[in-house]
Every structure is written in structure tokens, then in C-alpha cells.
């Protein structure tokens, strides 16, 4: 291992030339990365950005000389600090990985071994590579935990992975990657699975240690705003090709390619706030408390009113009870107390007790369109079933109506009506889910994180479609999401939830304009913005307000 003094910034560290990678799909090999060049200098952070299928993870992992099972590197060269990784022996690669090249995965919960304590897993690599003794590694680990601002750094290492929160675990994993002070770390979507407020903590932690140790990094993400905070240079990828490359500021301020411009504009969509209605609310929940299996209450005294033809967004982070609220409304989870009213009439608590018509009026769209559609049914039957079930349509009339609905969601009926869900893309599947909900001719549609599993450009299309449908059909949406950008785009009213309680609700303008409840402000300020240096500015602002003695809420746990 080189001494630290030899690690000067600016030397070439990793170079890939004409990288080609093939992936296996149903017995045939198909090229998924078509000759990409990549250079990375010491101490530099390179952002790889693109939608799913862009090949960004595949390229990032190839930087370690590795291809996932079902993938193979077929062309080009990968040279890491003078070592050709494609020709290197398994033994050489084994010695490099962990000690000089490290990897941080998207899901820390899946990457840690649940049977060992954090500090043991931290020390393992360093001891195994013969870099330090067990004791030294543990001391080093505690120091790193402290630097990454983990609570109680001296003792947190004694815990098992399930005993710390998701954001803490992700930071522990960054510490683990740093254990051998590698020259290169590959971050594969490290914050995608985290809540916005937690994301800030992890981003700040990654940024500080990467800068401090002059570690080069490849930062993979689909979120341009996040990458803009982390990377010096950004490569935009699409379908395994390089679209555009440039410094972060140049790319954000003056994108050259149309595709990059579209990625940048992705959060620009806004709707006009509808005027508040004077009618009685179409849907109302009053004083609802609920728990799973009689344990801890996940909802406490929640009351929400939803006006006809409006979009009410329920915002909160994981564990806030927003999805549970949806389950109470649909009757999947009968509440302990409180009631659900539809058009002023109290609904039976359990969905099994509700009449067919009551069920028809409240439809739901799910987060994962992949599992919300029966893979063994054709689109014709998926959309047709509610028509038969609720409206008694059969044969020709039903078929005509299915075609109308497909037309409404902008899919060509002739092409799609006989397909199976497996033959559609994620966005198209979500459109089918929307059509299925519309088929019942409901008054209220509950959208549970409907855009979270989709690529940003696709998500935007779905939001526009939902908006258009509301304008044309006058349906009411209850929009459950953790993504404030979505909320800003589509909501008329916003309900902010925290740990099973409503902390604030009101019109969009009112809630989005500070000052508000501290949690609302925290949530709003934590959404990454599309500008370089936003993260530093935010952290500096929070630190300054703290120094002035103001109460600053920094995480949902406080």
C-alpha cells in the first residue's frame, strides 16, 4: 500500500477505455454497455447518472473489475493505478478489493451480515488484508464512527445491524468502506432507499470523509440533484451510452444535450392550486387511531378532510403512518377508534362489510405496479374485471369500454389489449393500474407512492396524466408520498404526518411557505435542489442557526 504522502490529487487512478458489457436475457447475450470511456483522478468524485437500464451500476461495478452474475465484460480495458483489472488474476483482484477499492451498496440492511456486530464487520477487512491489528482497527473504527457523526460512537459498534436505524447503518457502511483507506470507493445509490431528512445526514457524512481522505469516488444515482451535491464531474448515461460529460456546475448550468435538459427540468412541473371548495368533503376521516395486532399505535387521532375534485397530499417519512392511513380508509385495517366518512355517510370499518358500491367509489393505485397487476392476466381482463364486477358490463360493451380506457391513459388499444403485464414497461404498468382504478368510475382514488418506483421522467409523465384525468373527470385524489417534489407539483392541500400524527395541514401555499411547524420546515429544506453547493449552504445555515441558539430540528427522531 502506498503511503499517504504519495497520494497526490490529480494523478490518474482509474481509466476505462471502450468498455463493453453484455447481459444475459433469456439465453441470449445482449450488449448493455456500448463502449464507454471513463477516467477518474485521485481525490475526484465522479457522478454517474441515468435512468434504470442506463448501465450506470454495471459500469460502476466494472470499475472494481467485477461483473454481476448474468453479466460479462466483453471488450475494452479497465486500468486501476497501472493494474489491468481485466487481465489481473483472481488473487490480485481479491487483494485490491476491500483494501484499495471499496463498495457501498444501496441497501445497507442487505449488505451487512445480521449475525455479527458492526465493529466486527468493520474490522474484518482491515485485519484480513493484514493492514492493521484487530485492536487498532477497532480504535480506528470508533474514530470514524465519530467523524461520521454516528450517535454514541464508542459503543454503537457493539450493536447488531438491526439495532440501528437505516441512515445510521448506511453511515456505518461508509465507515466500513473507509476502513482500509481505499483509493477508490464506488457508491451505488447509497441514499436512494432513505428518507429525505436522513439522506442529508448520509450525504454530509460521505462528503466530509471523502474530502478529508482525498478518496476518489464513483457516485451512482438516478437523482441529478443529489449527484450535483457530491460530484466534481458528472457523466450522464442512457441505454449504455454516454450522453454527456462535464463538471457538475457546467452540466447543471449549461447542459448541451436535450436528454440532460429534460432530466434537469424534471421537477419544473407545477399545477395551479384549485380554489377551496365549499361543498361538504367527499371523504373524511375523524379521530382515527390504529395499530397492527394491538401493539404500538401507528396512528393517533388522525383527522383529514378531502374536498371533491381536489388533490390532497399526505406527506411524511417512513413510519409516519401515511400508508396506514390509506389502509384504514380502504378498510384493510379497521381502526381502534374514529371513523371514515364517505359523502357524509359512515363507512363500515372493515372492507368485507362494505357494499359493492361503497367499495367502487374508493379505488387505490399502488407503489409497485409490478406486483399490483396479476402477471397471469391479460390487460383486457385486468381492466375488464372491475367493469364486469361493478357495472355488469360483458362482451362487446365491456370490450369497447376497455378500449376507451386504454385510449384515455394514452396507450394504443390494439397494441396493448392482449398483452400480459410482463410485456410492459414500469410506466406503462402504472398506467394500466390507473385505468383499472378508473374503470370502477370512483369518486376518490388513493395514490400510494405511485411514482416512487419509477424513473423521474416516467414519473413526471404519470403525474401529468393524473392531472389531466382530474381536469377531465373531476376525480378526487388522496396522494400519499414521501417525495416533496411530487407534492409541490400536484397537491392542492398538504397534510404533513410525523410518527402517526398530523403535524400540519392546509393549502399548498400555506404549508410550503415557512415558517411552519419545525418538522415541515425540516422536510422542505431537506429536498435536494438542482444546484451545486446547495448541501454546503444548507448545512452552514443549520449550523449558524444552531450557533444563534435557535432550536433546529435535524431529524425526525428528535
Amino acid at each position, binding site marked *: 500500500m502506498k503511503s499517504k504522502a504519495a497520494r497526490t490529487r490529480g494523478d490518474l487512478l482509474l481509466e476505462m477505455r471502450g468498455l463493453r458489457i453484455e447481459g*444475459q436475457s433469456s*439465453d441470449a447475450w445482449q450488449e448493455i454497455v456500448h463502449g464507454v470511456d471513463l477516467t477518474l483522478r485521485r481525490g475526484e468524485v465522479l457522478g454517474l447518472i441515468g435512468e434504470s437500464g442506463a448501465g450506470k451500476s454495471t459500469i460502476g461495478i466494472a470499475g472494481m473489475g467485477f461483473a454481476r*452474475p*448474468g453479466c460479462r465484460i466483453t471488450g475494452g480495458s479497465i486500468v486501476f493505478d497501472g493494474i489491468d483489472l481485466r487481465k489481473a488474476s483472481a488473487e490480485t483482484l481479491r487483494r485490491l478489493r476491500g483494501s484499495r477499492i471499496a463498495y457501498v451498496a444501496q441497501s445497507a440492511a442487505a449488505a451487512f451480515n445480521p449475525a455479527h456486530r458492526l465493529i466486527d464487520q468493520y474490522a474484518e477487512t482491515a485485519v484480513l488484508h493484514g493492514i492493521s491489528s484487530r485492536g487498532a482497527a477497532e480504535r480506528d473504527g470508533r474514530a470514524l464512527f465519530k467523524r461520521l457523526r454516528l450517535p454514541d460512537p464508542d459503543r454503537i459498534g457493539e450493536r447488531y445491524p438491526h439495532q440501528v436505524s437505516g441512515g445510521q447503518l448506511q453511515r456505518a457502511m461508509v465507515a466500513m468502506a473507509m476502513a482500509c483507506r481505499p483509493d477508490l470507493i464506488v457508491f451505488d445509490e447509497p441514499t436512494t432507499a432513505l428518507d429525505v431528512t436522513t439522506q442529508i445526514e448520509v450525504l454530509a457524512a460521505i462528503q466530509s470523509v471523502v474530502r478529508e481522505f482525498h478518496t476518489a469516488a464513483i457516485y451512482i444515482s438516478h437523482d441529478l440533484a443529489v449527484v450535483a451535491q457530491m460530484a466534481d464531474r458528472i457523466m450522464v448515461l442512457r441505454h449504455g451510452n454516454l450522453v454527456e460529460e462535464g463538471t457538475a456546475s457546467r452540466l447543471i448550468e449549461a447542459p448541451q444535450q436535450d436528454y440532460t435538459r429534460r432530466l434537469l427540468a424534471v421537477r419544473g412541473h407545477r399545477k395551479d392550486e384549485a380554489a377551496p371548495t365549499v361543498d361538504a368533503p367527499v371523504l373524511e376521516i375523524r379521530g382515527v387511531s390504529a395499530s397492527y395486532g394491538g401493539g404500538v399505535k401507528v396512528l393517533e387521532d388522525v383527522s383529514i378532510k378531502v374536498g371533491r375534485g381536489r388533490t390532497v397530499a399526505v406527506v411524511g417519512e417512513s413510519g409516519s403512518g401515511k400508508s396506514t392511513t390509506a389502509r384504514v380508509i*380502504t*378498510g*384493510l385495517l379497521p381502526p381502534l377508534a374514529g371513523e371514515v366518512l364517505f359523502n357524509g355517510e359512515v363507512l363500515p370499518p372493515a*372492507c368485507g362489510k*362494505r357494499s*359493492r358500491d361503497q*367499495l367502487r367509489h374508493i379505488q*387505490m393505485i*399502488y407503489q*409497485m405496479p409490478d*406486483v*399490483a*397487476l*396479476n*402477471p*397471469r*392476466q391479460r390487460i383486457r381482463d385486468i381492466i375488464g*374485471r*372491475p367493469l364486469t*364486477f*361493478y357495472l355488469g358490463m360483458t362482451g362487446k360493451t365491456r370490450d369497447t369500454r376497455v378500449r376507451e380506457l386504454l385510449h384515455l391513459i394514452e396507450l394504443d388499444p390494439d397494441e396493448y389489449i392482449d398483452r400480459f403485464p410482463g410485456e410492459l414497461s414500469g410506466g406503462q404498468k402504472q398506467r394500466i393500474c390507473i385505468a*383499472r382504478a378508473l374503470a*370502477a368510475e370512483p369518486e376518490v382514488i388513493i395514490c400510494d407512492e405511485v411514482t416512487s418506483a419509477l424513473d423521474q421522467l416516467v414519473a413526471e409523465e404519470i403525474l401529468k396524466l393524473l392531472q389531466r384525468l382530474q381536469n377531465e373527470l373531476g376525480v378526487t385524489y388522496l396522494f400519499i408520498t414521501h417525495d416533496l417534489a411530487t407534492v409541490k407539483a400536484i397537491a392542492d392541500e398538504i397534510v404533513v404526518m410525523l410518527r402517526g400524527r398530523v403535524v400540519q395541514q392546509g393549502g399548498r401555499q400555506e404549508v410550503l411557505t415557512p415558517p411552519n411547524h419545525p418538522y415541515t420546515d425540516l422536510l422542505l429544506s431537506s429536498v435536494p435542489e438542482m444546484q451545486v453547493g446547495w448541501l454546503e449552504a444548507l448545512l452552514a445555515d443549520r449550523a449558524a442557526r444552531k450557533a444563534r441558539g435557535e432550536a433546529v430540528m435535524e431529524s425526525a427522531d428528535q
Partner: protein
Amino acid sequence: MSRSAIKFLKSAPWSARFGMAVILFYVTLAVFAPLIAPYGETAIVGPRFDLWGEAHIFGTDNLGRDMLTRLIFGARNTIGIAFITTCLAFAIGGLAGLLAAAVGGWVDQALVTLVNNMMGIPQLIFALLILTITGTSIPVLIVVIAVLDSTRVFRLSRAVAMNIAVMDFVEVARLRGEGLWWIVTREILPNAMPPLVAEFGLRFCFVFLFISALSFLGLGIQPPTADWGSMVRENASLITFGDITPLLPAGAIALLTVGVNFVVDWFLHKTSGLRDEK
């Protein structure tokens, strides 16, 4: 559809093709047994334990019946009964498993407890016990083995259906207000099919071996009906004289078992989406 089916079959490896050829061969024998067999099923056509020769290719058995004829009719009886039994076992066990998963709660608990208790008793001894009490007519044999075997099917179908029952599309159906029958047959069952079909092949082999074992013990298919298990027993004494004739029915059992397993392996491999990792 048929074209894609042919393409699918063409992609099969040699082992699966061999298995399919074996199954096809056996099924042909079973269906056309009276046409193919040179003599009648129970006709005594020669001396006892006659040697292999032109009149009787595989010789004759302990009563002087033609061995080849008995083998061919044995295919019909043994495979036919095993097939019906497996179907019945799947109808009982599969449906109960899907119901247990879809309904949950005390229904699930009751079914699981019942099945666990039944599985606690060794299968062969349980079968011997019941068959001794009830007698050994073929319908009774089928029902007893099917019920005993359905416990295994129940475990599998319940486990598979459990994973499907929690998927969002099942929840969508529940929220729509669909009845239990629709949820089980339209939403869960089609998605549980691949593992169940694979299990069907395996289960068929087990049932088949089980019937043969029972026949060998004298409690299965009763003489004079030709059946491979009892044929092994009836002619077992020939082994002492170095005559391999009793191994013919045993070999017939082994070949079919291997053939079915080859096809099942391939099918499992296809449907589970397993890939060869290098």
C-alpha cells in the same frame, strides 16, 4: 401458441427429451395395451417360469402367464392408478393449501394442525393399517394414498400461495370485493402453477413407487390384475437361479421414475428462472 410450444420443446436439453420419449412410450403402451400385448392379461399360455424364447420373449411367470403381456398391462394399471391418485391428491391438498393461505386465521391453523398430525405417522405404516381395516379394493387404495399424499401437496401449495396472497394484486381483488373462490382460482392459483406442476411430476413418482411397494407387500393392487410391484414379488424366487426376469418390472419402474424426473427437473429449471452461473 402451438408454435411457441414447439419452440419451447425444442429448447429442451437431451435429458428432458429422453424423459419425454420415455413417458410417451409408456403412455402409448398403457393406452393401447390390448392391441400391443401378444396374449390376454390373465391368460395362462405356457408352463410356469418358462425361459425367454420365441413364443414368450421374456418367458412366463409363476402361473405360466406371458411376462411381456403382463408388463404391458402392468403399465396400464400401475400408471393409470398412480395418475388418478396423484390428481386426487392434488385436488385435495392443493385446494386446501390455497384456501389456508387465502383465508388465514383459524382455518389455516386448523388445517396445518391436522396435516402435521397426519404427517407425524409414518406413511407406509399408516397406509398398511388403514388398508388392512378397509380391505384392498382399487377405489379404496386410490383414496387412501391420495389422502395421505395430499398432506405433502398441502404443505407446498400453502407455502407457495402464502407468498402470492400478500401481493398487491390480491389485495386489489379483496378491495374490489371479490369472493374467496375468485381470489383462490383466478388470482392465486395461476401464479402458483409452475411449482405445483413440477411437484405433480415428483409426487407422481412417489405415488407410483408407493403403490408398487404396497403391491410388493401384498396390500396394493390385487392379483390377477397385472402390476409391476406384485410382479416383482411373484417372480422374486427366480433371482436365486440367476434369472433376471423379476428385474424387468423393477427396471420398468426405475426407467419411468428417471424419465419423469428428467422432465420435472427441466421444467423446474425453466420456471424458477434459475440460470447457469459461471
